């Protein structure tokens, strides 16, 4: 079956530096994909390689079966049917909105161009601004014009480079949903680049997380959140921390985390494991005898977010309802309620993580206060 977008072992190099290393992914027609990752991970380089502004040193990029880039041959950007929306919108300042949107429609007759521009203006709800100039528009309006402009020539795929980073934070999530609705209604395939996971969650059907040029994991947002393949994914997605736990000879894991809390068959003595702890895994329990010191706190209205110190100095997150207000340095009584067992081995890869649901568990139900203070 022909994928809309297919990347096979793509490597992008700048001189000595390798920006993207052996990246492979596919995107189906009508889906919205996302390249997610911290800055410098190579996501923008990969996007630009798809657009044709960077060369590939290895691998191939194909769009709807047509090969766009190989190390030997590169189709020039203007011949790929790839639309692009830039971070700062890059509207042509010397053209008004109508002319901007119609810029890529030179192959149409004047009448056809006019009607296409009109329909796009309606799509992005900017019909009254057809004669306005870019500098007269707000950031959100400029983005919509950029979107309409990119959509006008009906590209095979739409690439968006951090489309919301120039806008106010409050607008972002709202706009992300709007843009997703717009793209879905057009049925267009899109690939989005962002460093903000909330945007990714709001917009994408499929997320590819990149780390230092390598693809860490590709999957649905749910997959990435609940089944992170590596420690990096686990730490990046969500607000959890990964802590180190070591197995003592009595079978009890130190650091106040009891083996009874995790269903991990036969951990070897002395083995150091990396355990993911998410804010919901530690709950405030007023009656608990375990109390951890508060290192940081942040008020978030409905909830309080705390960073607690384990006896050995590692930090774990914890959220409480907003009325629980413990000062920094004070003690917060907690109990462990690890809802998932996400454990990684020393190499950082997910190791035999098992869902800690009562059905699959051989151990006492979770929630038992069998916690040892060190």
């Amino acid at each position, binding site marked *: 079956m022909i994928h809309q977008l297919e990347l096979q072992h793509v490597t992008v190099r700048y001189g000595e530096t390798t920006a993207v290393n052996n990246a492979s992914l596919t995107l189906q027609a009508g889906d919205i994909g996302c390249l997610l990752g911290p800055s410098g991970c190579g996501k923008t380089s990969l996007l630009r390689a798809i657009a044709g502004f960077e060369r590939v040193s290895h691998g191939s990029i194909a769009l709807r079966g047509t090969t766009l880039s190989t190390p030997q041959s590169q189709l020039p950007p203007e011949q790929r049917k790839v639309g692009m929306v*830039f971070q*700062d919108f890059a509207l042509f300042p*010397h053209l008004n909105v109508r002319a901007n949107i119609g810029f*890529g429609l030179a192959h149409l007759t004047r009448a056809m161009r006019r009607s296409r521009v009109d329909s796009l203006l309606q799509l992005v709800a900017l019909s009254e601004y057809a004669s306005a100039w870019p500098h007269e528009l707000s950031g959100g309006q400029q983005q919509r014009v950029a979107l309409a402009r990119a959509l006008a*020539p009906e590209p095979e795929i739409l690439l968006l480079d951090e489309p919301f980073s120039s806008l106010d934070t409050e607008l972002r999530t709202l706009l992300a949903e709007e843009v997703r609705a717009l793209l879905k209604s057009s049925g267009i395939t899109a690939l989005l680049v962002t460093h903000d996971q909330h945007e990714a969650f709001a917009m994408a059907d499929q997320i590819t997380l990149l780390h230092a040029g390598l693809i860490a994991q590709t999957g649905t947002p749910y997959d990435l959140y609940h089944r992170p393949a590596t420690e990096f994914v686990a730490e990046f997605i969500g607000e959890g921390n990964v802590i180190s736990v070591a197995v003592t000879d009595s079978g009890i894991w130190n650091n106040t985390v009891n083996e009874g809390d995790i269903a991990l068959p036969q951990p070897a003595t002395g083995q150091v494991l990396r355990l993911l702890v998410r804010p919901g895994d530690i709950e405030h329990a007023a009656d608990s005898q375990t109390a951890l010191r508060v290192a940081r706190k942040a008020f978030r209205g409905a909830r309080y977010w705390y960073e607690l110190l384990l006896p050995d100095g590692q930090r774990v997150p914890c959220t409480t309802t907003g009325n629980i207000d413990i000062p920094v340095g004070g003690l917060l009584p907690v109990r462990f309620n690890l809802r998932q067992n996400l454990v990684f081995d020393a190499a950082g890869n997910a190791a035999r993580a098992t869902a800690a649901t009562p059905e699959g568990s051989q151990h006492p139900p979770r929630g038992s206060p069998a916690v040892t203070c060190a």
Partner: protein
Amino acid sequence: MAVTGVHPNTASRALSASTLWRSAIVLTATVIAVPVLVILVSLLGPYSKAWQHLLDTVLVDYVVNSLLLMLGVGLGTLLLGVSTAWLTALCDFPGRRLFSWALLLPMAMPAYIIAYTYTGLLDFAGPVQSALRSSFGWAHGDYWFPQIRSLEGAICMLSLVLYPYVYLLTRIAFLQQSTAVLEASRGLGKSATRTFVQVSLPMARPAIAAGISLALMETLADYGTVAYFGVSAFTTGIFRTWYGLGELHTAAQLAAFLLLFVLVLFTLERYSRARLRFHRTGNRAAPVRIRLRGWRAAAACTLSLGVVSAGFLLPAAQLTVWGAEHYSSALTPAFIRLLANSFLLAALASLSCLLLALLLGYGKRVHPGPVERAASRVASMGYAVPGTVIAVGVMIPFAWVDNSVAAALQQRFGISSGLLLSGTLGALVFAYVVRFLAVSLQSVEAGLAQIRPEIDESARSLGQTPLRVLKRIHLPMLRGSLLTALLLVFVDVLKELPTTLILRPFNFNTLAVRAHELASDERLAEAALPALAIVLIGLLPVILLTRNMSREPSAQ
């Protein structure tokens, strides 16, 4: 202790100080506007018979030639400036970095000097044609060689030294274009060439227009080149009408005509600069340069080298050769006196301009009102007005003042005061101030803009008096701008010709005047030494500019 209001003494002192400032500023702006006003008023005045004669014979020539000059120089600077800007800003080829600043060198060459030099090189009796004749055995009339001393020649000369205006502004525009915009165009299906034509060029249009306007204002103001080449233009016409026909008033009317042309250009330049503000969409990413290889790279190098050679290297070399020949005979005490005179004049003018610029700049800062802004704008219009026009506009009122004052003194007290203003250094310095204040003002205002009001306020809140704020904060921060202002005016005055010719006191020659005199007397080789001095000193602002260029973010 409750403070019920400002202490009356402080209030009245502040009030009188502020009115003092305001009056000083208004007075300065008015006095500077006088020459232009006088010229414009002459349009109302009586039109003598000489005007009819001018109309019948040469006025049409002046207009036609001026239009042709503007057209030719506009085209020439457009081609030279935009092509070189594109090469150095958006392409990469061997030597690009060198050429980026080398292309500014022709700015050190005043147009009339390059005119003399090329005449010496390409004239009938010059080395090029003589070599041609001797190697091919030709005589006069056997071959065709372009006539350098013509309108076309003047267009070439002016284009060669004025294209840097267009080059500089266009280059900055290209560098500041966000690459995202260019990539957006590529993504929308336009090839690299079409992107340049449909996006890069139109986006740079205001910068190009501003650059060409500046170049054309200089063209209209030029006297030395057109006089030497025998082209009948307004500036030579003004000279001729005044000195030749003896009609100062008619000359003023001709000057007013010229001013109308200039006004159009001036408006265009201001408008373009305003529009530049709207052409900054997107962030400045370092441009991804087009790598030129093979014959393309060679062509780029050749073009750049050719332009720099024609505009600077070749004339400078010829001047050096001539200068070396006449070194011993020309380096006389008279020459030293010439240097001293020129430097004295330039120093006086640049200091005066700086003081007035500070007055206006600070006035606007301390009381940012419409009056101060208008005064600043009026005071900075002088750069558009040609030197001949200013000279006439200074001569008329000064002579009137002198004669009225002398007559009054004679009547009342029986003293004959002689001439107080006309024919003195003061008149000349005043004319320079009118013309070049804009240069100082721009530098000072740019420097002051960097000192945000918050800096002043925090210093005051830390207990510094206004004077100490000035000394300890403003002065160090402004030092660069002040020096720039001084240097730019200094060099401009040194190169200036027509105003100096008309207004200078007798027995007072400058380098520029001497070069012009000697060249007009066909003693080109002797003119080389003063010309070289001018060019060398003219290199200083170019060096300043290139250092600013290297601080550009996208200068890799």
